């Protein structure tokens, strides 16, 4: 093969393959990914707001951001546990993982609500 691919074409090809691979993921994983994206996006908007107006009620800022980040982390954990291709968690029923996710989220949000002020 003598044909040298340019970086740009490489990037485009990489992107395409990622996209097609992603399309193959099961729907429930996609839901979880969407949820994570939503949480991170909310956190970003809060940080931008803080950058604009200053961090006066700092505890409120922290609780807001950490709520988003925390729930994103828990969702990621759920995705790991629910993913069928993950051999580690083969024996864990997905409902159990979901129950853990719900419980951890409720505890996280109790703490967040307390810290919110």
């Amino acid at each position, binding site marked *: 093969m003598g044909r040298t691919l340019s970086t740009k074409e490489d990037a485009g090809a990489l992107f395409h393959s990622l996209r097609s691979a992603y399309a193959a993921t099961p*729907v429930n994983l*996609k*839901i979880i990914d*969407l*949820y994570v*994206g*939503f*949480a991170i*996006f*909310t956190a970003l*908007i*809060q940080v931008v*707001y803080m950058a*604009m*107006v*200053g961090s*006066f009620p700092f505890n409120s800022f922290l609780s807001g951001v950490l709520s988003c980040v925390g729930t994103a982390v828990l969702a990621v954990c759920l995705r790991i546990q629910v993913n069928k291709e993950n051999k580690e968690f083969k024996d864990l*029923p*997905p*409902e*159990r993982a*979901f*129950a853990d996710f*719900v419980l951890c989220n*409720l505890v996280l*949000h*109790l703490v967040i*609500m*307390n810290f*919110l002020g």
Partner: protein
Amino acid sequence: MARRLAGFLVLLLVVSICEAAFLFQPISDSHRSAALELFTPDHGSFKSLEETYEALRTFQILGIEKKPDLTATACRSISETVGSSSSTAKDLFYALKANSIAECKIDKKASKGIISRLNASVSGASSLLDFYYSVGGLVLIKDQSSEADVHLADAEGVFRSVKAFSQSDGRWRYSSNNPESSAFAAGIALETLAGIVSLASSEIDQSLISTLKNDIIKLFDSIEKYDDGALYFDDKLVDGHEYQGPLSTTSSVLRGLTAFAAVTAENLNLPGDKMLGLAKFFLGICVPGDAKDFFNQIDSLACLESNRVSIPLILSFPSTVLSLTRKDSLKVGVSTVLGSEVPSLTVKLVGAFSSGSKDASLVESQELNFDKASGLYILNGLPKSIDVGSYTFVFEVVLHEPEHEEVYFMGSQTKVPISVTGLIKVENSEIAVLDSDLGSIESQKKLDLAGKNAISLSANHLQKLRLSFQLTTPHGRSFKPHQAFLKLRHESKVEHIFVVGNSGKQFEIVLNFLGLVEKFFYLSGKYDMELTIGDAAMENSLLVAIGHIELDLPEAPEKAPRPPPQPVDPYSRYGPKAEITHIFRAPEKRPPQELSLAFLGLTILPLLGFLIGLLRLGVNLKNFPTKPVPATFAVLFHVGIGAVLLLYVFFWVKLDLFQTLKLLGFLGVFLVFVGHRILSHLAAASAKLKSA
């Protein structure tokens, strides 16, 4: 109530008059009014016969008229006590004592009964007080009743038994059991022994009486002394009950002594100055505030007034401050302690000494003239050598009849502090500003220190201020007052006081401002000048404002001392203070509300994005259980989660952590239960599907 107040004011006035040490006033009308105040019976009668006797005796000595109702109530209680068969010797004793003054009639049968009871009491007596009351009672009834035949059967035996209580130091014990002895008991014992001697039908052995004389001499060895010459007896405070206090003790000893002196023909060989010292003690009390103390004082003074040892005579002075301006004469009174007349005598002024100096006397020995009208001895005209000031005058009293010297005692010499006051002439007063180097006068003004002055001077720090005046006494001598001050007060109320020194009559002060610049704190400006000349002997002491002086002082260097802070108006210290405004932390700047709301909207956006994404993914609810039981659980599961989230919203808005946790506990249990059911159902369903 008003009478009590008046009496109290009288007491207060008398106490204030009586403060002069070395000067003892004989008994006067102030005592009489005080007596009437102190001895007021409760509802017409006193609490006990002892108090009745004390009141009657005090009124008798002071010459106060006997009140008929008082006598009547006294007689009633006396006859009651005398007639009752349960009266003790003590009751009878005081009843008879009161009767000796009230003079009520006691019938023959009663007096016979008393005599026999007292005789029995004497034979059965074991303690000093038993003897005292019974023997005393017998002496009194002997005088009061018509029975002539009152005597002690075994007088010598009784004498010896009383004598057995005596001790070697002159004090007496109360009984053979009690080892404590006191001078008070000695007085009682002497009275008892005097009574025994007077009741004895036959002569008592003279040796007994001689030993008693020695006891009295030994008792007087323990006499105590105050600085002003007063002598008194006091017992050691051993037991609170028995302790009587110096007044009671001294009066008891004096009573015993005079009673004993009255019954013996022998001379007691007691020096007269002891009696004079005792008189000074009693007179020095002035007017006591207690009825018992009052009685003790008056009764003792009555003993001193007429006794067989020696009668002390007192010098009294209506005034010890003489004014040269008013041409006062020195007046001296001589009387007994109760203020009665004395036999003819001469009062001599032996010497006068200036206070604090040991020089020779300023006057020659001279006699004072007796003025029949006032009963006082007067020195007409103070000699020229007595000028303004304080002196100690020394007097001597000489009795005319030599035999009176046995009876009366005057003391050798009496020293009395006398103050002489007068007008001091202030002359030649002038104030001047001098130039420092040359001493030449820049400005000079005459002052009139007696009248108003409004001198206005000015000086700078290179000049001097000179103030001078002359002080002369009425007799033309130089005079150095206690206070001669010049005060300079700045406008800012900083004051400086200087003492004006003198040489002879001339008083002068020179203020060299060059040296005083630092003392004045470099304050330039107007200084008010004030001169003070004062002395106790100066009748025209003055505090006069001279005027003011403008001082021009150099600027203060940096390290110069600041003037001390002037005292503020004392009331402003308690006035309202400056109001404190609490400065709170400025609140943080908040972003504009529109921006916050905009971002609130922006935050909702990702959620919308999530929901839209879910829809695009083709999310469905096909796995929702259709069978009723699981369906309910599913619904309850979602409701439970919603409820918890709602609880969190309430937590943020209203509730506190404890309430939230409590509710969360309930909801959590419910949720766990329901969640477990539905999820296990779902798990079972998917497992079935997989295996199928």
